[in-house]
């Protein structure tokens, strides 16, 4: 079985949980023998044919343009490090740093699906020789949504347009059985590939615009999300919470929804002894993007209340984000002295250090489709206080689950944990044992089941299953 997988983030190109989740899924699928052609928003037009589990880390590369391949080989001839080669491909730690306007020149043609212009696309016409695409009811409207919504001068929209342009190239990668697309950024490309190749499409919801914006959000993105999910043959949600949101807010047919919970890759770590710690007092951690979705302002409000009762506690806000300055000024305005600290961006190793110095982990997300970070914290034996509006609460019992807006209850809980360190340690220990069982293998098996539904039932896929 071979999958064409499209995603926006993959290590080392990571800005949030999407990249970590995709890595976990890809590696576990490779372990199950599923082969994956991975496409990322790279600067050069390439894909990554992953065949063995270790390929998830090595990222072997294949080019769409022969000339670029030759140039790349020349340029990387003397390079010994993987990181250097990935940099040439345009994989950086932070995506969205470049746009190839060259690739965008045909964008107008591509998005005019249903018109003469669209039929003139080479990839499309080549495929038409082989099979008639079974139409999806209402698909004209779905593609019209893409045409009308994937517009804008923002970097991210230009990048998505560029990525979508590569759909015609991706369509030509011949051997895959179905398309698996993660989050709205890759939906337009996935839709065109499905249109061109008639191969089944699975879209995977890691977060919706409602989650990210903490409110209504960008209407263009809603429309792209709606169209992608409507056009897809299956929709995978990372939690019941997200499935519920997709069904009520986007009116997606529940018959094609599947729920596959995320997992984590953290190894269980014994906590450091008190002497080696960063802080002697109780340490409470926020770890994630400092953005409205994650509820950093609730963390600050809780800190303010807890510090009134326990002035020796330290609150650490780890990460960066658009609300960083606002939170910093507010923490100063609250006069939290040197009790509320900001780490700035942390690399993987530094995250591990900060986790091994933390007593209580807080995730006050306003809307969290899943939330892998609390599982990682729990793997360190840290007691977690998580908002009820988080999908991760569906898979764990040994954590405190509180509404994100209930600052009183959160503060009381944290005070209680500070005052009862032995209870805190015991819950942390139980949580550690619990999350040890939550592994990607299970998620990958469930995803493979979704694939199998298709490879066996979808008319266009008949006879192409290799297993």
């Amino acid at each position: 079985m071979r999958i064409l997988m499209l995603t926006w983030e993959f290590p080392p190109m990571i800005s949030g949980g999407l990249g970590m989740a995709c890595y976990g899924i890809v590696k576990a699928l490779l372990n199950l023998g599923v082969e994956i052609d991975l496409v990322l928003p790279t600067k050069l037009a390439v894909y990554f044919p992953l065949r063995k589990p270790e390929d998830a880390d090595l990222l072997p590369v294949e080019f769409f343009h022969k000339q670029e391949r030759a140039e790349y080989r020349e340029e990387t001839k003397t390079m010994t490090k993987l990181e250097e080669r990935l940099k040439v491909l345009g994989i950086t730690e932070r995506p969205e740093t470049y746009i190839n306007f060259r690739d965008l020149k045909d964008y107008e043609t591509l998005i005019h699906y249903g018109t003469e212009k669209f039929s003139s696309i080479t990839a499309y016409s080549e495929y038409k020789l082989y099979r008639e695409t079974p139409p999806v009811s209402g698909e004209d409207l779905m593609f019209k949504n893409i045409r009308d919504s994937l517009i804008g001068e923002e970097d991210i929209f230009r990048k998505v347009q560029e990525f979508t342009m590569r759909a015609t190239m991706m369509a030509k990668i011949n051997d895959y059985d179905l398309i698996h697309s993660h989050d709205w950024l890759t939906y337009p490309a996935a839709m065109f590939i499905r249109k061109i190749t008639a191969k089944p499409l699975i879209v995977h919801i890691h977060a919706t615009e409602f989650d990210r914006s903490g409110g209504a959000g960008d209407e263009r993105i809603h429309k792209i999300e709606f169209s992608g999910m409507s056009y897809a043959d299956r929709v995978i949600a990372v939690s019941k919470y997200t499935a519920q949101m997709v069904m009520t807010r986007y009116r997606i047919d529940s018959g094609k929804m599947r729920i596959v919970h995320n997992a984590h890759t953290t190894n269980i770590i014994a906590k450091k002894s008190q002497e080696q710690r960063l802080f002697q007092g109780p340490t409470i951690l926020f770890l994630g993007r400092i953005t409205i979705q994650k509820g950093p302002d609730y963390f600050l409000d809780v800190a303010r209340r807890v510090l009134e009762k326990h002035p020796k506690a330290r609150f650490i806000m780890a990460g960066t984000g658009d609300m960083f300055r606002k939170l910093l000024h507010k923490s100063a305005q609250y006069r939290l002295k040197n009790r509320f600290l900001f780490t700035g961006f942390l690399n993987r190793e530094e995250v591990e250090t900060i986790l091994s110095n933390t007593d209580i982990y807080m995730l006050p997300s306003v809307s969290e489709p899943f939330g892998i970070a609390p599982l990682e914290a729990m793997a360190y034996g840290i007691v977690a206080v998580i908002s009820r509006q988080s999908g991760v609460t569906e898979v764990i019992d040994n954590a405190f689950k509180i509404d994100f807006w209930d600052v009183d209850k959160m503060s009381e809980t944290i005070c209680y944990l500070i005052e009862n360190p032995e209870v805190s340690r015991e819950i942390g220990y139980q949580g550690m044992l619990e999350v040890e069982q939550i592994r990607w293998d299970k998620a990958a098996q469930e995803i493979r089941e979704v694939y199998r539904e298709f490879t066996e039932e979808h008319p266009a896929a008949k006879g192409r299953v290799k297993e």
Partner: protein
Amino acid sequence: MLNFVFYFQVHQPYRLKHYRVLDINNNTEYFDEPLNETIVRKVAAKCYLPANNLLLKLIKAHRGKFKIAYSISGVTIEQFRKYAPEVLASFKELAATGMVEFLGETYYHSLASLYDTDEFLEQVQMHRDLIRKEFGQYPTVFRNTELIYQDKLSDLIYEEGFKVILTEGVDRILKWRTPLYAYKNYSKDISLLLKYYMLSDDIAFRFSNRSWPEHPLTVEKFIHWVNQLTLSEKNNKNLFLNLFMDYETFGEHQWEETGIFDFVAQLPGEVLKHSHLGFAHPSQCHELSNYQQESLSFPEPVSWADQERDVSAWVENDMQQNAVNTIYELIGEIKKRGRSDLLETARYLTTSDHFYYMCTKYFQDGDVHKYFSPYDSPEQAYIYYINALADLEERLYDK
């Protein structure tokens, strides 16, 4: 008679390194030694050494007639000892001429006068002892950090036996009065000399500004302006033209290429050509003032910084206030627990520059702040500072 009173401020802070949360309890080195050394050596080469050399020559050339005053913070003298001992030696050479007066200030160039009276007086005494040790003078003239001054400060300073305080000639206090007279503080105990900011800033800030209509500034032009000032004063009163500025003006803020050193070289000779013009030390204002000094009240703190000439450059926004309150609270706690091993480090963190880097004022003044800051943003400066205070506190409660 109009007396030029030159006072130059010599100050370099111990700048903080990019001290991160993960450094806490792992690293007690808060200060960026390589950076501090680089800056001190650079400014020594561009300013301190050539300017000292020039002024020494001028003092010798105009025997007994050309006088100047310096205030050098304690943290700066420490850094001279460590990074540029030749600079300290050349200041001593200047001191030996007898034509140079050294003023008193806080050892750490701090804002302690606004936050902690005991700490303030201790820092003033530390600095006075240091000046006596290094230059053989016991200061009788006081200038507070950044010329910050208010009524209650004068009481403290008078108690300490100082005779004169220097501060800014703030318009909202002076109103119709001229800063050319010597004044008294509100309780008439101590004399005040007020900076003539127009003419001071013509040299310190505008000298090389090509869009300034008066550019280039020549000594003739400057003395012409000064002469115009005295036209209305015919009663043989002794006036003081207080030209107060950062010493780094010479060669560092105004580069050598601007002609700033030539300007300084010519000035004393040109001034002394006029019989009604001369030079004086700040401490001479008692003996020289031949009139009843009017008393001035400064109910709120003033300073020489920015358009506002108040303390908003250091302690206006929330970051600055949270930071400054936390350090003084910590110093109180350190003293209470008798942790003399931590006191010196804590005091380095009282230097006003740390708070200046956190300033978020925009427009003109914001630019000046940015120019002097070693950090990307006020927020970064705040983060490193607060992290250092967190570590200091961890050490305080450690034993």
